[in-house]
């Protein structure tokens, strides 16, 4: 059984279709990535999952039941645009968020202290939020998201604005939560994060799903017909060749997709016959980045993914 099922969600703002018949399933105990570039519809999808927006069509099913307040109680949500009450004290705001989820008392205070220590913010627990640096405010917000021990954690662009040390800390905590059997859903436009963390992904572009499934399956499927090539020499003769489906220039490397799996050997032969100096010919490697660019279109992709 799936932990969460998103069925046929549609959301339109005026004339813009922000989310266009999106369906996917989030398996139990998985880290689920919602990827796509800015404005693709990730946040709108997440907001509908959180019942912040009501969908025009479709529904979200939590373990067989339509989501409602029960889901809100079980979820920890970190929105893309962070915000806290500037005048409240760190400790107060953590307890306030937990209280809205129905958790209060000594256990929560103890947990808050633990997390604050872990994020090296314990000495600031009585400071006002407004006196904290932006990065520290983000950390507080993350603690507030997970303090009530939610079954589901939804993180919208959790890594944006974090320094490398804290990015690693966040990744550790995400993996830890996975081990505790929690479902983690996060959205990102940074493919490396998704690639390193996710079990399952959904790729959204212009409100539509363009790819979904287990990350390993996807990679296998795409890598079999994909060759990552670094070479010297003119390879323009390949264009129009019947075994080639697509050639994508990524700068250093060229990604070539052949029509059938067996065509990779023919491609190698073709290159050697045409006196191309091959430096790297990898017939079993493709990054999520490449898959995305291939699917979402390279021209637009380039500006969105300067990473």
């Amino acid at each position, binding site marked *: 059984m799936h932990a969460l099922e998103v069925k046929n969600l549609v959301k339109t703002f005026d004339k813009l279709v922000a989310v266009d018949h999106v369906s996917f399933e989030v398996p139990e105990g998985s880290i689920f990535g919602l990827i796509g570039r800015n404005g693709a519809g990730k946040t709108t999808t997440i*907001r509908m999952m*959180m*019942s*912040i*927006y*009501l969908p*025009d069509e479709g529904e979200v099913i939590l373990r067989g039941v339509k989501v409602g*307040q029960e889901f*809100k*109680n079980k*979820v*920890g*949500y*970190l*929105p893309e*645009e*962070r*915000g*806290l*009450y*500037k*005048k*409240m004290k760190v400790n107060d705001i953590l307890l*306030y*968020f937990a*209280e*809205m*989820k*129905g958790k209060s008392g000594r256990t929560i205070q103890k947990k808050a202290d633990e997390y604050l220590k872990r994020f090296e913010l314990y000495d600031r627990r009585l400071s006002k939020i407004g006196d904290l640096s932006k990065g520290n405010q983000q950390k507080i*917000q993350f603690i*507030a998201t997970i303090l009530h021990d939610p079954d589901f954690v*939804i993180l919208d662009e959790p890594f944006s604005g974090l320094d490398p040390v804290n990015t690693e800390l966040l990744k550790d905590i995400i993996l830890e939560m996975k081990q505790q059997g929690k479902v983690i859903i996060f959205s990102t436009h940074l493919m490396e994060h998704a690639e390193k963390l996710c079990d399952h992904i959904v790729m959204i572009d212009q409100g539509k799903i363009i790819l979904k499934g287990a990350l390993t399956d996807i990679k296998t499927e795409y890598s079999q017909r994909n060759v990552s090539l670094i070479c010297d020499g003119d390879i323009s003769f390949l264009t129009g060749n019947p075994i080639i489906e697509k050639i994508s220039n990524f700068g250093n490397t060229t990604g070539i997709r052949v029509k059938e799996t067996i065509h990779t050997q023919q491609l190698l032969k073709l290159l050697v016959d045409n006196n191309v100096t091959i430096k790297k010919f990898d017939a079993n490697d493709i990054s999520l980045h490449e898959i995305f660019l291939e699917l979402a279109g390279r021209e637009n992709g380039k500006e969105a993914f300067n990473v």
Partner: protein
Amino acid sequence: MFNYRVMAIIKREIREKLLSRTFIFMTILFPFLMFGGIGIQFALHQDEANAKVAIVTENAPLTQSFQKELLTSDVMKSGKLSLMFFTMNRPELKNYLEEKKKDLLEGQITGVVYIPLSSLKDKRIEYYSKTPTNLALSRKLEGPINKVLIDSYFSNKALSPSELDFARKSLDFSGFKVSKEQNVKEEGYGNLILAYIFSFLLYISLLVTGQMMLQSVIEEKSNRIVEVILSSVSPKELMTGKIIGNAFTALIQMAIWISPIILIVSTTLIALPPELAFGITLMQIGYLLINFALGLLIYLSLFGMMGSIFDNPQDAQAGMWPIMILILVPFFIALSMMENPNSPIANIAALLPFSSIMVMPIKMTLVEVPIWQLILCLFVNILTILLVFPIAGRIYRVGILITGKKPKWSEVIKWLKYRY
């Protein structure tokens, strides 16, 4: 509706507002400001009473009768008013005015009342002064002067003294215009003061609490914190919590403000002079508070709605004039009732949505209001809440998530139909 989520929000709002500097300042300082204001006005009145007025008539007997009447009238009792009497005709008056121009301008002489012979027939008298619009003075002199004019008018006609008394009486009576008001005055001049206090307190409280609500919604919206909160609670719960939290704080503030009045009414600790006695019962104060609580729910819904439409305070200030009108107009109606509590406008406004919040308690303080009207007023306000709250809620839940461009009113109306 009152689940732990709403309670958490209410608690936070109350804590934040009660401990805020604005709240503490307002609660402590406002009464001082208000009574200070009243004190200054009182002082100004005192100052005005220190007047020197010349009474000028056209013949000696008339001057004498004015002298006799005025010097023995109540007006002189305070000792602040000094009168001079002259007999002059019009050209002489002109010279006199020319001569005393400097004194008049410098205030040595407050004014000159000229009572020509013609006034015996048409009652037109003239008042020369730097400030001829000084109503306080003319009102004081009006009665005695009128009396003399009546006396002399009827003395030529063969009337018995009792007939004269009768004629005089009726004219005196008309000088006070509204008979009921005289009743009120006899019972307690204090209620007029109370009515003033109540109207200012209600007005200021609605304004300040509304502003605070507005700021707080805008803060949540522009800070984007609202999205985090909405991951735990529904927009309706959030709005309900905020409205109740803010209303509660305002109610506490109001209770603190009127606690001296409650103390005066319910105990004998502080005794006021009889002419200042407050003719109000604890029940009426309770009614005022209940009515005010309903009003807060209505107005705070509207202020919350406004806050959700705009995402910065400047736009919000510019865009909230419709609500300001809904507060200002009842306030002015309430003030106008000090003059005439039974005016038709006041009677209607006391039962209309929005205006009844301020007008009804003031009316109740000034005159007897039938019980059915008091109940109807509460009923109207509850109905208004039931009407305003869902509309405000629909706009709020859309508005708080929309940032960027300032929306047009036509768009806001469209929000009402949105499915969110």
